């Protein structure tokens, strides 16, 4: 009996996978759109979100479509953007606001499916296969979502509708802004195959160059190349990309809430003056660790890896990371580990321009682990309580109402506002 049931189940699963309806929804110029919504007086004018417009450092995180037309790109220094587009208005990022909008977008998606997988803060894959009987086909669901995003959140999205995640993503990139593009099984050979090979997920600059050396310029050419040649050229990825191009991607859309939406929490800053000794670096590492740990606690995460990044005044930079014994969101532990990493890896050949601290390999607060016989759990408990108390005091009386003693050794240095330099890293596409 059992033997009969199993193949049937598998067959059913296969049929289901074959007829999937996957959407990929991408909020257009997300940060800039949210800022535009809150600043109606800037309507029709170029805007970019990024850095601190007043100080020397800062890059463009997101530019709106008007600024993009002038050639302003993500990652550009603010002064470069200003040269290209003198009319541009820069606004400082308000990450909490964007996270709120991201959450509201997910609430809208949740009306259509529980299978939604975020890819960064502003993109999501949605498996709406099972909603088709109630809500209509993929295209109508996409249209409904798009309309609701416009009326309820005041932002536009590009949605790709397809039978797998890779082509859904290609679809959402196909036409922007505010567009819906289908990439059905009957269409992808005409639509996707003409696109440049660099548009495919996981074909970066270097892979693209290698492929172009082989004479592969479009996704179609990639699909029709012998898989073995690609494997010899790119290793395992060759086979993966070949499958992507042929529409053989059957990776599922993960259920919501099974993953932390982000991979790591990090803060970095370029200091107002160069750092010249251990004490300087210690202050900055503590400032950053405070922000990182507070954000971990805020979101109910703990990290199992601490990473620091250092850049000297000749812009040479490196990162070092280490796995720590117990998952933590305790400021003291993250800072101490960060400083230890720094001490072990820097010999003060040059003054330091910029420092970053990051907590990675995140687990949620319910994560259990083996206790360490030699670890002082009473002390950890105390440190946790102390952090919670500091969080509470800051929530009620403001960030600067309570400070560590070390911050008073150099008030200018410690005045860095770590919370401004937020970074959000999406999970990779493959299993994490």
């Amino acid at each position: 009996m059992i033997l009969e049931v199993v193949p049937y189940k598998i067959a059913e699963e296969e049929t289901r996978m074959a007829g999937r309806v996957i959407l990929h929804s991408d909020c257009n110029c997300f940060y800039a759109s949210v800022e535009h919504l809150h600043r109606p007086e800037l309507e029709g004018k170029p805007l970019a979100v990024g850095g601190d417009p007043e100080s020397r450092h800062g890059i463009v995180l997101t530019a709106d479509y008007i600024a993009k037309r002038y050639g302003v790109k993500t990652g550009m220094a603010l002064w470069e953007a200003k040269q290209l587009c003198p009319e541009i208005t820069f606004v400082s990022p308000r990450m909490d606001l964007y996270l709120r909008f991201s959450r509201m977008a997910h609430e809208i998606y949740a009306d259509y499916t529980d299978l939604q997988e975020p890819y960064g803060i502003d993109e999501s894959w949605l498996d709406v296969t099972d909603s088709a009987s109630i809500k209509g086909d993929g295209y109508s669901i996409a249209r409904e979502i798009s309309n609701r995003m416009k009326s309820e959140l005041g932002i536009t999205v590009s949605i790709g509708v397809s039978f797998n995640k890779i082509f859904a993503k290609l679809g959402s990139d196909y036409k922007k802004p505010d567009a819906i593009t289908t990439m059905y099984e009957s269409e992808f050979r005409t639509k996707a195959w003409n696109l440049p090979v660099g548009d495919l997920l996981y074909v970066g600059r270097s892979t693209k160059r290698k492929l172009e050396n082989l004479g592969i310029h479009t996704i179609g050419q990639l699909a029709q190349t012998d898989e073995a040649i690609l494997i010899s050229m790119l290793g395992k990825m060759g086979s993966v990309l070949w499958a992507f191009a042929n529409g053989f991607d059957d990776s599922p859309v993960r259920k919501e809430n099974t993953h932390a939406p982000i991979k790591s929490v990090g803060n970095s800053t370029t200091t107002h003056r160069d750092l010249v000794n251990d004490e300087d670096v210690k202050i900055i590492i503590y400032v950053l660790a405070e922000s990182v740990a507070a954000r971990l606690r805020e979101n109910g995460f703990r990290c199992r890896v601490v990473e620091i990044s250092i850049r000297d005044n000749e812009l040479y930079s490196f990162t070092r990371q280490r796995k720590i014994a117990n998952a933590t969101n305790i400021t003291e532990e993250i800072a101490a580990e960060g400083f230890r990493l720094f001490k072990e890896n820097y010999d003060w050949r040059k003054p330091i321009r910029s420092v970053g601290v990051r907590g990675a390999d995140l687990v949620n607060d319910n994560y259990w682990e083996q206790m360490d016989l030699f670890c002082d759990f009473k002390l950890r408990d105390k440190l946790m309580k102390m952090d919670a108390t500091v969080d509470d005091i800051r929530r009620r009386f403001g960030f600067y109402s309570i400070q560590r003693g070390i911050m008073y050794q150099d008030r200018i240095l410690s005045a860095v506002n770590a919370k401004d330099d937020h970074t959000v890293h999406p999970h990779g596409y493959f299993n994490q």
Partner: protein
Amino acid sequence: MEGYKVYVDVTAEFSAEGVLTPKSFRWTDGNVYEIQRVKDVRRAASLKAGGVGMRYTCVVNGRDSYLYYEDNNMWFMERAGA
């Protein structure tokens, strides 16, 4: 520049079922306006004032006006004029 977004004082009622209904608001001129009826409640973005919230379509003096309840627990309205 004076924006189109106007935060207002609102008197509202919570029913035993937990439904929030605004009853009146004080406009910038100091007058208190009675909300005769709430026609519709939905989440919406205000492109004019700039912001997002629960939008109450209120009948005030026989005319429809929008009253938004933001996430920060503040109420705002859109100032008339182009």
